[in-house]
């Protein structure tokens, strides 16, 4: 038996195709998308600001100078000062820590719970599915802002409770997405193969099913970070979340509301910071969706 040159060629081709992992494919797709790159840039910029806040902020987060209260944006205070004469730029820089932390923790929490519910419902079907999904239906009947408000009202103020409230509000979306994608791969032959060699349910879900429905989950995570940050700042804004004098962006907006006629900059810049971060996350999420799964493209 001699190996023909054509046979060698195909084998090389196959191995070179295999080398491109999902991560690389996604990255190559993303690189071409200019808007997604803008989004990524904004996200990295804010991460950078969060990490090096101590070096970037020209003043301390609580440094007061009552003689300079209500200073309009100028060279010294590029975003102006608030009613206590605190530098708004510095407070926004430090405040990024709250938003990013709330976004990251809440999205992780809701992803874990949602994936658990979704996998159980999708994988076992029948009664389990019915009970879990009816529960999700009930949660979906309450608009998420309202659900967040009710949960914080019950648990009390504070950053931990805000995270819990926002995370619970995001669970239904994950549960539905994971359930739908599990239903689509559950009947495939490789699942049957895994089961026939004696893999446990847990192993099948973790190693065979979830990796194959990663694309929509990853997209949902980016989107839910954005949503979590928005909802958390909304809760702080109506006075239920992180409380002033903390430099959380929503809380800053809430505190500045009273001076809206006198000093427009107090409410303008924290909101601009929220909008920029959400804008970045949305652009990146959109790009990621297109790169991961062209079918989902809208």
């Amino acid at each position: 038996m001699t190996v023909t040159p054509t046979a060698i060629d195909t084998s090389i081709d196959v191995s070179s195709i295999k080398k491109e992992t999902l991560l690389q494919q996604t990255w190559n797709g993303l690189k071409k998308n200019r808007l997604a790159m803008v989004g990524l840039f904004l996200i990295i910029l804010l991460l950078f600001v969060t990490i090096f806040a101590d070096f970037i902020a020209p003043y301390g987060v609580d440094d007061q100078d009552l003689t300079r209260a209500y200073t309009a944006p100028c060279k010294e205070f590029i975003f102006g000062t608030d009613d206590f004469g605190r530098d708004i730029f510095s407070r926004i820089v430090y405040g990024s820590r709250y938003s990013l932390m709330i976004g990251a923790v809440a999205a992780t929490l809701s992803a874990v719970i949602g994936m658990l519910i979704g996998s159980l419902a999708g994988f076992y079907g029948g009664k389990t599915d019915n009970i879990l999904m009816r529960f999700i239906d009930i949660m979906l009947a309450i608009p998420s802002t309202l659900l967040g408000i009710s949960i914080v009202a019950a648990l009390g103020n504070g950053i931990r409770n805000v995270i819990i409230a926002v995370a619970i509000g995001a669970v239904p979306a994950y549960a539905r997405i994971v359930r739908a994608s599990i239903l689509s791969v559950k009947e495939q032959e490789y699942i049957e193969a895994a089961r026939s060699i004696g893999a446990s349910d847990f192993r099948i879900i973790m190693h065979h099913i979830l990796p194959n429905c990663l694309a929509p989950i990853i997209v949902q995570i980016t989107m839910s970070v954005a949503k979590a940050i928005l909802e958390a700042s909304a809760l702080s804004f109506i006075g239920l979340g992180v409380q002033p004098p903390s430099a959380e962006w929503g809380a800053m907006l809430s505190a500045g509301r009273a001076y809206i006629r006198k000093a427009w900059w107090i409410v303008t810049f924290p909101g601009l910071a929220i909008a920029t971060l959400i804008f970045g996350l949305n652009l990146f999420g959109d790009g990621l969706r297109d790169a991961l799964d062209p079918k989902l493209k809208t």
Partner: protein
Amino acid sequence: MIRFILKRILALIPVLLGVSFIIFCLLYFTPGDPAEYMLGMDATEENIQELREELGLNEPFLVQYFNYIKNIVLHFDFGKSYTTKQSVTIELLQRVPATVTLAVLSVAFATIIGVVTGVIAAVKQYSIFDKLATIFALTGVSMPNFWTGLMLIIIFSVKLGWLPPSGFSTPMHWILPALTVGMASSATIMRQTRSAMLEVIRQDYITTARAKGQKEIVIVFRHALRNALIPIITVVGISFGGMLGGAILAESIFSVPGIGKLMVDAINVKNYPMVQGGVLLIAFAFSIVNLLVDILYAFVDPRIKSQYKSSGKMKKKAPIVATKAKEETT
């Protein structure tokens, strides 16, 4: 068709019971004694006990829940407000007109702006208008709506002095809140309209309509838009929930005397019966809107309607079309 509607209304009951149970649990296990809140700091122990007895707060949890539901179903009574000691039902109903006005105006604004810009963006794909509309949509969904509200106040009330910053008495007062609530949703609706229209515009029957010399405007609205309506209606229905949430924030920014403002005020003074009643009422409204959306599908799409009419096996298919469209947009 009527059987389908009845079935959907029946299916609402367990969902609403579930909502009431969750909210009741949440607020029941909240630390603090309602009787103490009602009587204030200088109440004696006996007074508190008396009031607890009167409000039924000494009953076991499930009995309290059962009584709560019983009063709602039989007497449409959501309990007594802790602060004003008036019926929650009456206070809530007084606030309904403002919230409904705001919601309807916001939905109308969001739908008109979203559909019109979406259609133009799709018809003139890749044009400068399309790009501008896409950027508008991306910024629109990124802005927190309470911030949008404050910015609108700064621009139109403080700087230009054109519109009043708070209150809800005249149509002039309605403009800013409706813009605030509708803005983000108009962006979502625009994106959905654009992609739905793009899909339809490539179909053969559009080419046929063009070939027979039909006017462009008739093609766009009669031939294309009608066939792109299902996903658009779906996204309008879904955004309605977001708009209800946005209305809560907008009401407290613009001092609109609506249910949202009532609830936020109630939460701050731990007036829980009011919060419970408000959440239930909004969840109920939201479920009704979802039901209306499902019914609307049938009127828009003759295929779905015929499925309702034909008896037997086909009946089940209609909701599937609807849910499929719903899943695509979420």
